[in-house]
């Protein structure tokens, strides 16, 4: 691993410098993670009096549990839809801003601020707009004959959390697409124009392929975002309902652990989630390595 050519020689100072970071990592990250792994092999009785070691029992039970399998499916639908929606909208906006000269900065400012809005607040705002009794959108939908009710209809609930989650993520994707577009040399698009390619053809044959590294990167980041950071959206808008329709994996860990007090199962779910994060992180890092060698 890289260091400087010359280094400071000091026996205790470096340890002192890394100590705070390592202490926090050990106490609040590694120890709990280890606990989760350990607990995932245990089973507590209903009164929390007796724990028994049951090996992979919790995992087996999970994979047989229709609720968990449903949660997996819900997570996949939610993640993919949110990521796709947020990426496509951001790309369209970034392409539009890329055409602007003087107004680009103003538009950018007006589009990026939702990044700063807490996911929980984003949830509350959309929840209010879609409120079945007084919300403005159900009112409009009612006019065209659609009876919106996300607290009863599974599909409505899913659409609502997707909109709330994507709304916040568009600004992030937008910034990265704008940067990606700026990195495409103007000469390339000019060459294509000289070759007789119109604006749409240029987009498909030049811009989109050159943006593919950015798009792939955003896809991974967005999936991570929807799987973990959207917890507050779910909690504030649907609490996982109706009938488990929006009970994504992270939310289920929390519900089963704190509300259901099923520690073994919750721990097993944590471990599975950790495995998912680790693989996503590895994908992200391999991708970054590749980008560096370009």
């Amino acid at each position, binding site marked *: *691993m*890289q*260091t*400087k050519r*010359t*280094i*400071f020689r*000091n026996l205790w100072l*470096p*340890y002192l410098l890394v100590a705070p*970071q*390592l202490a*926090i*990592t050990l106490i*609040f*990250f*590694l*120890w*709990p*993670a280890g*606990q*989760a792994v350990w607990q995932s092999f245990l089973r507590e009785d209903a009164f929390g009096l007796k724990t028994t070691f049951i090996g992979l029992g919790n995992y087996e039970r999970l994979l047989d549990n229709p609720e968990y399998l449903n949660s997996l499916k819900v997570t996949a639908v939610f993640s993919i839809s949110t990521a796709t929606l947020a990426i496509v909208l951001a790309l*369209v*906006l970034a392409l*539009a*801003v890329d*055409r*602007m000269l003087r107004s680009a900065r103003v*538009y950018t400012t007006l*589009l*990026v*601020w939702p990044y*700063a*809005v*807490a996911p*929980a*607040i*984003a949830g*509350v*705002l959309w929840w*209010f707009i879609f409120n079945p009794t*007084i919300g*403005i959108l159900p*009112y409009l939908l009612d006019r065209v004959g659609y009876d919106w009710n996300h607290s009863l209809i599974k599909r409505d609930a899913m659409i609502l959390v997707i909109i709330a989650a994507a*709304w916040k993520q568009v600004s992030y994707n937008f910034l*990265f697409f704008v*940067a990606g577009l700026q990195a495409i040399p*103007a000469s390339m698009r000019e060459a294509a124009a000289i070759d007789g390619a119109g*604006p749409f053809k240029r987009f498909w044959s030049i811009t989109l392929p050159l943006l593919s590294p950015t798009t792939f990167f955003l896809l991974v*980041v967005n999936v991570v975002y929807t799987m*973990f*950071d959207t*917890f507050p959206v779910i909690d*504030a808008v649907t609490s996982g309902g109706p009938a488990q329709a929006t009970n994504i994996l992270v939310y289920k860990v929390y519900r089963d*652990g*704190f509300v259901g007090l099923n520690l073994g199962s*919750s721990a097993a779910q*944590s471990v599975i*989630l*950790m495995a998912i994060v680790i693989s996503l992180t590895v994908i992200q890092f391999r991708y970054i390595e590749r980008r560096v060698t370009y």
Partner: protein
Amino acid sequence: MVENQRWLNILAHLVLIAGVLVVAFPVYIAFIASTHEPSAFVSGVVPLLPGSNAANSYADVLTGGVSSQMSVPISLMLKNSMIMALSIAIGKIVISILSAFAIVYFRFPFRQAAFWMIFITLMLPVEVRIVPTFQVISNLGMLNSYAGLSIPLIASATATFLFRQVFLTIPDELMEAARIDGAGPLKFFKDILLPLSRTNIAALFVILFIYGWNQYIWPILVTTDDKYQTIVAGIKRMADVVDSEPLWNYIMATSVLAMLPPVVVVIMMQRLFVKGLVETEK
């Protein structure tokens, strides 16, 4: 610009204006709602034009005049959020810059191990290990304290990597020149490294402040005492009323107040914000 096609430019403007409107829409609705009397929400649809009750709504939530649904005034929650966000942002920066300094400028046994331990935190977001982490906090007696709110969140692989990257781009000769000039490690850190990382620190601060301010599940778990309630977490409690209609004007006034600090930070420091965002993803 390859060519100037009028209709494409007009289309682009239309797309952007639509985008800006969609993005602003929920916040507009929230702000309008906060300016009305509670009675405006009893029947029909939410109002779309400002009402005349803005001053009352905001004054009430700030001073806690709506005790039926809130046990503490929003001003206290704002203060708690501010303490938490600042502690997290500053804490993360301090411990990360120190460990990056150790990892780059020293060679010591277990350096590699330390690096990997920090790296692992990247793979363990709090949502994933929430139950056992809560047990640790509770065992350490850190529930209902500012320390419990912030310290468990201040380990940061991202910030450590960022500073490591920054330090690696600083020429070796600078440190050698400083050593010849009689600067020890701490003096070099203070006189040379810190000033040279200034903009990186500022950019990172913007991102981390937002991160800290927007924490949701952690404050909900760690604080049962309303004295430590943060505003983002508090909104949910306000909205979760069981047997009566939510007081929409208060909820929305609170939402607007909760959004304000981080949004202002982003808008005022857009350049630093973009820099921070791009750098932390490297």
